[in-house]
């Protein structure tokens, strides 16, 4: 496998980063970077850490980073997570208020502990409304990995607060079975993109076809998170197998929530380099974040409507005349 850190790789230009990702030869990992400047979204770091977890340390080769921004990668724990000596020396300091270095979460207890530690790391103790939103997103996304991904190494997560845009960027990656295999347990999904579309619809879960889900799964987590991103006019990326769905930024006067993700302003593709597992990236701009309670009300309305619509559709099955 080969990963190239370009000059810039954020959710807006994520496609460019993916196109240079080479998943062939999964037993080795070669990492290189733009020599002049490298600036990336935490989701890129989570992805590389997840890839590294699948490869023996002596099969990972990492080019010496020359760019002045190389210290960022050291601070975010990239080289440590890959067991690679970077040769970069920085003064370690308390990360509170700036970022969450790459963390691996392998079980429910690990997630609970992480959720406690996360808010101080992002300096959100004095901002309970945003803390709720961020905590909610991380909990739902990581639980998805722990419950559905069947990933030996759990979830890799990294996050960063970006002062200039007043945004918290979060990335979560796993090398599990991917969305299609999970969804296919209950629904037909001919392509990875079909599976992503279904996974983002309210009330669709791979664990059952029954409306209302199972006793443990409702199929609502990703729909809630996409809805949070929609209302806050932020990017949201879901990448699994060869498909990627990207929710694009919206205008303030067009924040309608849709049950079908293809009705949202988005870009999508089904021919990206194959990612064995699932990757989620999301930005949460703190200036525009809507009150969480109000947001839940809106999400609830769409969710209920989607369930009703599917029931109506089921009731209206036409007789077959032969």
């Amino acid at each position, binding site marked *: 496998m080969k990963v190239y850190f370009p000059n810039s790789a954020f959710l807006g230009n994520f496609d460019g980063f993916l196109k240079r990702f080479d998943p062939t030869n999964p037993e080795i990992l070669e990492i290189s970077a733009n020599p002049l400047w490298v600036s990336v979204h935490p989701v890129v770091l989570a992805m590389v850490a997840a890839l590294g977890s699948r490869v023996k340390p002596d099969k990972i080769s990492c080019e010496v980073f020359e760019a002045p921004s190389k210290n960022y990668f050291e601070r975010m724990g990239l080289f440590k997570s890959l067991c690679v000596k970077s040769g970069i020396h920085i003064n370690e300091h308390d990360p509170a208020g700036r970022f969450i270095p790459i963390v691996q979460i392998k079980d*429910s207890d690990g*997630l*609970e502990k992480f*959720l406690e530690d996360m808010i101080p790391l992002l300096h959100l103790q004095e901002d*309970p409304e945003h803390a*709720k939103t961020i*905590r*909610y997103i991380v*909990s*739902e996304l990581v*639980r998805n990995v722990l*419950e559905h991904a069947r990933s030996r190494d759990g979830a890799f997560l990294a996050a960063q607060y970006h002062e200039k845009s007043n945004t918290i960027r979060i990335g979560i990656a796993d090398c599990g079975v991917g969305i299609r295999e999970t969804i296919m347990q209950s629904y037909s999904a001919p392509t990875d993109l079909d599976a992503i579309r279904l996974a983002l619809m309210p*009330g669709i879960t791979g664990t059952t076809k*029954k*409306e*209302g*889900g199972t*006793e*443990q*799964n*409702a199929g*609502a*987590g990703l729909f*809630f998170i996409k809805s949070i991103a929609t209302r806050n006019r932020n990017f949201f990326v879901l990448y699994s197998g060869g498909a990627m769905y990207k929710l694009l930024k919206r205008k303030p006067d067009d924040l309608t929530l849709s049950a079908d993700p293809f009705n949202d302003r988005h870009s999508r593709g089904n021919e990206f380099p194959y990612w064995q597992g699932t990757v989620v990236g999301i930005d949460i701009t703190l200036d525009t974040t809507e009150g*969480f*309670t109000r947001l*839940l*009300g809106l*999400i*609830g309305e769409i*969710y*209920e409507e989607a*369930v*009703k619509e599917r*029931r109506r559709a089921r009731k209206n099955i036409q007789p077959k005349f032969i």
Partner: protein
Amino acid sequence: MKEIKLLDHVGSFAENKDKARQIRVQLIIPSLESGEGIILDFTGVDAATQSFVHALISDLFRKFGSEVLDKISFKNCSEEVKKIIGIVSDYMQEAG
């Protein structure tokens, strides 16, 4: 009426679905089966995920029907927790 203090089981952020299941299976269902009502006390729980609330109560709708809401009271819920309980109750009744 049996009262269950959620804070003691799940802390101030109710998100652990495994714990929700434990509470449902070990505490809620046996009480309902014996005809006893339940008070779910959310005092001190300032937030919950939809997944947690689903794991806590959705199966009760399947087992006991919508009438289960006559047997359960939700005490001291924050506005946010109320919304999530409302969402799960609505879609479970809609799912029938």
